[in-house]
């Protein structure tokens, strides 16, 4: 395991007027990341993803718990951790008036790399990330996608074993996003372990070898996307109702084809083995009890269903 954490915790106290508030941003995170995989942290805004990453990147000290990254202890040797990791922050990291090349050379040199080697690596990175054309232009003239690629190039200029990418595609247009996914996969091909965060379901599903779903500072589920979806009990039939949600729930509760049932304000979610064959039965049951419905939808399980099953909320809504 290239990353192992045990019981990582962090809380922040902030002052709102006279009141002192404490936010428990991360509440005991245990995880293992295998070498060479793309590991994803999926969770809504405020789940504690960035805080966990910042702890692992030695930017903030954990309140509790510990971690080992590429065999180096986070608390005892933060200086050595810095040498083996790269970190790409959520909000970007380039200076408007610098050029990509300048940023890359300086950043490499901050890792102790010699001047000539730094220039070589900068040129190679600019080629690899298709930035050579703009290399000597100021960063403020770049598009969002170009600027993000500079950020990633900076994060790996010293050839780290592990690279942390905080929301690498947030704010990018669909084309740049697809491009970025390719870049991330290339990092894995180069032998790096990638630890990224995202709040996009499709991204977690398509890009990550394994993921941990995070909510309110804790990991609520962990596994490959396929494993996680299997954990959810089969298909979901979602019945939207104009009223009488409670009454309908009572009716379905006793139906033997329903494995599990959840209600939201205007709908019921039925977890069933084979959704397609159950729909006629659902309609008949509603009809027999004189309950009107708005619509019926069949879902194959998605990561959102996993999130919903684990937290009672939909990731799309939160």
């Amino acid at each position, binding site marked *: 395991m290239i990353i192992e954490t045990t019981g990582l915790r962090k809380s922040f106290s902030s002052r709102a007027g006279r009141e002192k508030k404490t936010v428990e941003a991360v509440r005991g995170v245990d995880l293992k990341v295998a070498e060479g995989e793309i590991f994803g942290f999926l969770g809504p805004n405020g789940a504690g993803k960035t805080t966990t990453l910042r702890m692992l*990147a*030695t*930017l*903030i*000290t954990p309140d509790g718990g510990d971690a080992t990254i590429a065999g180096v202890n986070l608390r005892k040797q933060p*200086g050595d951790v*810095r*040498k083996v*990791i*790269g*970190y790409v*922050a959520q*909000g*970007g*990291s*380039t*200076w*408007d*008036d*610098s050029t990509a090349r*300048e940023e890359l050379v*300086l*950043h490499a*040199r*901050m*890792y*102790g790399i010699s001047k000539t080697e730094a220039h070589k690596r900068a040129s190679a990175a600019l080629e690899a990330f298709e930035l050579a054309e703009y290399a000597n232009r100021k960063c403020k003239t770049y598009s969002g996608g170009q600027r993000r690629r500079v950020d990633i190039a*900076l994060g790996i200029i*010293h050839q780290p074993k592990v690279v942390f990418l905080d929301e690498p595609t947030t704010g990018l247009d669909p084309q740049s996003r697809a491009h970025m996914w390719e870049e991330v996969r290339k990092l894995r091909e180069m032998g790096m372990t990638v630890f990224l965060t995202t709040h996009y379901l499709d991204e977690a599903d398509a890009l990550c070898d394994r993921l941990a779903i995070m909510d309110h500072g804790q990991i609520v589920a962990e596994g490959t996307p396929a494993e996680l979806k299997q954990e959810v009990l089969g298909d979901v039939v979602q019945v939207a109702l104009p009223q009488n949600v409670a009454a309908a729930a009572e009716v379905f509760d006793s139906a033997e084809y329903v494995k599990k049932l959840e209600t939201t304000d205007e709908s019921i979610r039925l977890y069933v083995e084979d959704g397609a064959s159950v729909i006629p039965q659902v309609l008949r049951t509603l009809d027999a009890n004189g309950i009107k419905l708005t619509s019926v939808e069949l879902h194959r399980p998605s990561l959102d269903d996993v999130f919903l099953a684990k937290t009672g909320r939909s990731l799309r809504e939160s």
Partner: protein
Amino acid sequence: MKFLRDTWLVFQRQMLLLLRNPVWVVVGITQPLFYLLLFAPLMKKALGQGAELTDAQAYLIFVPGMLVMVALFTAFSGFGLIAELRAGVIERNRVTPVSRVALMLGRCLRDVVSLLFQAVLVTVLAVLFGMRVQLGNALLAYLLIALMALLLSSLGYALGLALKSEDALAPMLNTFIQPIMLLSGILLPMTLAPAWLQRVADFNPFSWAVKGVRELFAGNPGSPDVWKALVILVPLTVFTLVISSRAFAKSVR
């Protein structure tokens, strides 16, 4: 070794950016220039107490004050740092093994260099207007204001890191710089002040600095005011450098 190399790296980068956009140096020079042209002539009569001073004499009193005033402005260094924090540059630097002291010191040295550039410009202008000062004395005076710049810019960085917003930093600096400036005899020597005000000014390290620089410009490098200024400024500068490097090492958002 690594620390020196890292400091040089940071300094180089900061100088490059400064030269790319030298508007702040230009802004920094216009204000002392206005004072030199529009205010210093007033002092000829005011300071002469009856007999009018010559241009040269007035400048010898006035230019040292101007130099310290320019040095005081380095306390505004925090604004640039907050912009860098916001851009994520500082955080990116902090994930590398680069020396934390170097992150701060490289920036301070940039501030010192740009200050010295302004100081030389002010002095040269005054010399063109007839002031005379010995090179050795001027260099010693530059050492004093360089110390001040180091002290104030590192303090500015510590404040910037602590407050993290321009809105909090601006009133803070204005509140402190204003009285420090008034109580250091920048425009008029504190010897003109009533006794109680002089006592208060004695607690202002920059008032001692102004006295020291004035003695140097007056051609008295052996004056006790010179070594007093050094004895006061050196430990203070070391202290703020330590505080500020700690702030860089500590977690910042």
